[in-house]
């Protein structure tokens, strides 16, 4: 089971710049490592992350094997209206995870 931690302020003033922190549990196997028997471990990483604010994309990132395990990201957005901020991760071997957070804008 994938575990994701999201940190979005519950309340914000209109026009305020808020920081969003996300962390998801994933090994991010690089595909450059070998087992003790000399076989190459296949790549298994999260390659795309997208954040949407009430359905509109606000942030997108492409990950490469040089990202550390359990990828952590901090980014910002302007609090425009109350609603939902959704986060979506896609990766190798059909990996997919979605989380969302509610925000109230005054």
């Amino acid at each position, binding site marked *: 089971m994938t575990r994701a931690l999201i940190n979005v302020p519950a309340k914000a003033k209109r026009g305020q*710049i*808020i920081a969003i922190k996300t962390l998801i549990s994933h090994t991010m196997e*690089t595909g*450059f*490592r*070998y*087992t*003790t028997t000399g076989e190459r471990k296949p790549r298994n990483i999260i390659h795309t992350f997208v954040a949407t*604010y009430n359905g*509109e994309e*606000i*942030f*997108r*990132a*492409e*990950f*490469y*094997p*040089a*990202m*550390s*395990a359990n*990828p*952590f*990201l*901090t*980014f*910002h*957005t*302007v609090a*425009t209206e109350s609603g939902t901020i959704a986060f979506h991760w896609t990766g190798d071997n059909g990996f997919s995870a979605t989380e969302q957070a509610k925000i109230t804008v005054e």
Partner: protein
Amino acid sequence: MRDSMDALETTRRELLLAGTLMLAGAAAPVMIRRAGATPAAMKAEIAKLVGEAKITQGKVKLDIPPLVENGNTVPCTVSVDSPMTPADHAKAIHVFNEKNPQPNVISCYFGPRAGRATVATRLRLADTQNVVAIAELSDGSFWSASVEVIITLGACLEDNLI
């Protein structure tokens, strides 16, 4: 007697030296296998991204501790000096490295809705190397910053412990 002792001493010293050289020789192929990307590969990857455009130093701030103990999680913050208005904003931030198996680390895309062109994340670094951050602005210009990071224990080196 004394002469023969001296002779013995020299041989032992030579033996030790020879042993050290052999060890170094044995380690070299392993190092070659691990070093995938080179500064040239990084430059090629950056050239692919920016095309003909000119990259200027400045506007980008790359925050990485200069001395890192564990290359598996290296905290990194990239911020771009930009007003983030619809007319003038940062469109993307790319991070590259010189000595990991691949030159790319992360590419982030955003627009004026971001409010602040700052991204923080954690990287893997295989060796002591330069890390380069490149920002693409809405007017099509590219800006960069580079930091040399010293790694005590590189990522991907724990192969035998798996």
